[in-house]
C-alpha cells in the first residue's frame, strides 16, 4: 500500500528573472517500508522535492501546488499546526551537512529530547533516557557522556549518527535522507548507510534517499526515480534500471561512474560525460527537457515533450526513442 502519493507536484519560485520551475509536475509514490532513491545532478530539483514534502519551502517566494497524500491526508491542505505535528514525528529528515545541521549551542541530548517532548509528550527525564537509548542505537560510544556534549565535540560521522538519532527518535513512518553521506569520508559513508538500513528494518520506516551517488543507490534503494530539470524522466526498480536504463540521461549518468580496478584490468575507457548545461528553468521549455544535451535528439524531441511511458516491467521513462533497441546501450 502506498504510504506517500505525490501527484503533479509543482514547486515554483518567484525570482527577479521570472518564475523558476524548480519542480514541475512530478508524480511518484513510496510504499510502506520501501526505499526509493531520487537521483539527478545538482539543480535537478531533488532537494526541492524533498523540502516540498515537508513543506519547508519558504512561501513566498516559493509556491507548492499539486497534492502530497501521506497516510491518506493531503499535506498541502493541512494547517501549519497540523503540519508541525507531522514533521519530526511521522516524517523526518536527515540532511547533507552534519557539520552545520545540528545547533552548535545546544547539547546533543537536548536536540534529541526536543522531538520526543514535542511529539510524544515525554517529560524531561523520560526523554533524556530515550535520547541515551537512541545514541546507543546509532552506535555512539559512551552515550551517557555524549548526551551532555555539544556538536563541536563530535566528529562528522558522529554528528550524522546524532542526526539519525534525532530523525528516528519518534519512529517515523517516512525518513527523507537528503544526501546523507555526501559530506562524509568513504569509510564512514558505508557505516552510516548500514546504520540507516539496520534502523529502517528495526522501525519499519520507508526511506526517500536523495543522492547523486549511484553507488549508494545500488546499495540500498529498491526503486529509483531519475530527475532532470525539475521533472521525472525515468523510474524503475533498482536492478532493472542499472541493467537497462532507457532514458539517454540515465545512460549518461551511469556512463559517468568510474569503475574501480578498470585500469588494472585493462578495460579502462574515458569516462563518458554529458555535454552542455541544465536548461534555464526560468524559461518555458518546449519539447523534451533533455533535448539540448541529448546526442539522439531529433526535431520530434525539440517540438514535442515525451510523456512517461511504460518501457519495461514497472519501468517508465520519458523519451520518444527509449523503446527502440537502438539506444539500449
Amino acid at each position, binding site marked *: 500500500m502506498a504510504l506517500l502519493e505525490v501527484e503533479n507536484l509543482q514547486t515554483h519560485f518567484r525570482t527577479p528573472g521570472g518564475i523558476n520551475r524548480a519542480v514541475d509536475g512530478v508524480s511518484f509514490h513510496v510504499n510502506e517500508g520501501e526505499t526509493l532513491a531520487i537521483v539527478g545532478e545538482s539543480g535537478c530539483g531533488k532537494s526541492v522535492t524533498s523540502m516540498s514534502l*515537508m513543506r*519547508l519551502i519558504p512561501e513566498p517566494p516559493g509556491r507548492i501546488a499539486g497534492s502530497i497524500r501521506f497516510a491518506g491526508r493531503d499535506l498541502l491542505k493541512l494547517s501549519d499546526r497540523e503540519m*508541525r*505535528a*507531522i*514533521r*519530526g*514525528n511521522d516524517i*523526518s*529528515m536527515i*540532511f547533507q*551537512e552534519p557539520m*552545520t*545541521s*545540528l*545547533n*552548535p*549551542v*545546544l547539547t546533543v541530548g537536548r536536540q534529541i529530547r*526536543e*522531538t520526543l517532548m*514535542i*511529539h510524544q509528550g515525554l517529560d524531561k527525564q523520560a526523554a533524556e533516557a530515550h535520547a541515551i537509548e537512541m545514541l546507543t542505537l546509532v552506535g555512539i560510544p559512551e552515550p551517557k557522556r555524549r548526551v551532555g556534549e*555539544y556538536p*563541536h565535540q563530535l566528529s562528522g560521522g558522529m554528528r550524522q549518527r546524532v*542526526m539519525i538519532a*534525532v530523525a528516528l527518535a519518534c519512529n517515523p513512518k517516512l525518513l527523507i535522507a537528503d544526501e546523507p553521506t555526501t559530506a562524509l569520508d568513504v569509510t564512514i559513508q558505508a557505516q552510516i548507510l548500514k546504520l540507516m538500513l539496520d534502523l529502517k528494518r528495526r522501525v519499519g520506516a520507508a526511506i526517500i534517499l536523495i543522492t547523486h551517488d549511484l553507488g549508494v543507490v545500488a546499495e540500498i534503494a529498491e526503486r529509483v526515480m531519475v530527475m532532470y530539470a525539475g521533472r521525472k524522466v525515468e523510474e524503475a526498480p533498482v536492478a532493472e534500471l542499472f541493467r537497462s536504463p532507457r532514458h539517454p540521461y540515465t545512460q549518461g549518468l551511469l556512463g559517468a561512474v568510474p569503475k574501480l580496478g578498470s585500469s588494472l584490468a585493462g578495460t579502462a575507457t574515458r569516462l563518458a560525460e554529458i555535454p552542455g548545461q541544465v536548461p534555464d528553468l526560468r524559461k518555458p521549455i518546449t519539447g523534451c527537457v533533455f533535448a539540448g544535451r541529448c546526442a539522439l535528439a531529433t526535431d520530434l524531441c525539440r517540438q514535442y515533450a515525451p510523456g512517461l511511458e511504460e518501457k519495461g516491467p514497472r519501468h517508465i521513462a520519458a523519451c520518444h526513442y527509449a523503446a527502440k533497441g537502438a539506444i539500449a546501450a
Partner: protein
Amino acid sequence: MLSYILRRIVATLPVMAIVALFVFSLLYIAPGDPAVVIAGDQASPEDVERIRQSLGLDRPFLVQFGSWVWRILHGDLGTSIFTNLPVSAMIAQRLGPTLSLMIVTLLLTVVVAVPLGVVAAWKAGSLIDRVIMGFAVFGFSLPVFVVGYMLAYIFALELEWLPVQGYTPLSSGFWPWLENLILPAIALGCVYIALVARITRAAMLEVLQQDYIRTAKAKGLGQGGILFIHALKNAAVPIVTVIGIGIALLIGGAVVTESVFAIPGLGRLTIDAILRRDYPVIQGIVLLFSFVYVLVNLMIDVVYTLVDPRIRY
C-alpha cells in the same frame, strides 16, 4: 572558569592603573589652578601658596600621584574642595539614584529591544520589520534631552500619568521608586533600544539562514521555539557585546537624563563638580565609571562562555 575570571581580574589591573594616571593628570591638563579656585577671589598670593602647600600641589608630579594612588587603595578618594566632605561619602550618597536609573534602563532595553529585533528579523522585509526599523532610526537620531522633555510634557504635564521629575528611594516602596524612573529610563534607553534592536535583527537574520534552523523546522518545532531558543542563543554573542558597549552610552546619557528629570544622582554630581572645578570629586567619579566599565567588560566575557559552549578560555 574561575581561574579565567581571576586571570582576567589581574589583567584589568594595568588598565585601571593607566586610567588612574589619566584621571590624576586631569589636574595638570585642565586649565585653572585649583589652589586659586579654593582660595577664592579675595585671596592674596600668600594664601594661595599656603593652600597649595597644604594640598601638596607643590610636590613633584610622581610623588603626588604615588600618594594619591596609595590613598585610593585604602578607600580614600580625597576630600571635596567645595563641600569639605569625603568624596567617597558624596559618591555613596548619589550612587542609589544613578544605579536605579541604569538598571531600570538596562532591563527595559533588553525586554523591549531583543524581542523587537527578533520579530523584525523573522518578518524581514515586511511592514512590521520596516516599522520597527523606522522607529530604531528615529530613536537613534533623537538626543536624550529632546526625548526627555517630550516625554515629560506628554506623560507628566498633559496626561499627568507620571511625575515630572524627582527621585524616590526604593526604601519608600517599589512603585514610588519605579514611577519616577519610567520616563527617565525611556528617554535614556531610546538610543540604546534602537542600537540593540538593530544588532539583534542583523544577528538573527544571519542565524536564520543556517542549516540548523532548517533542522529545527524539520523536527516540528513551533516558531517561538525556533526563534527564541534555537536562533536567539546563537545570535547572543553580538547582542551581549552591544548591550555591554551600550553601558558606556548609559553612563554618558545618565548625566544629561539626571539633569532633565532632576534626579540627584552621580550625573548631577559630575556636572556640579565640573562647574566648581572640584577636582577630587571629578577624579573619584571618573575613576568609578572606568571601574564599572572594566567590570562590565569582564562580565560580558563571562556571559560569552555561558551562551556559546564553543568559547572556552
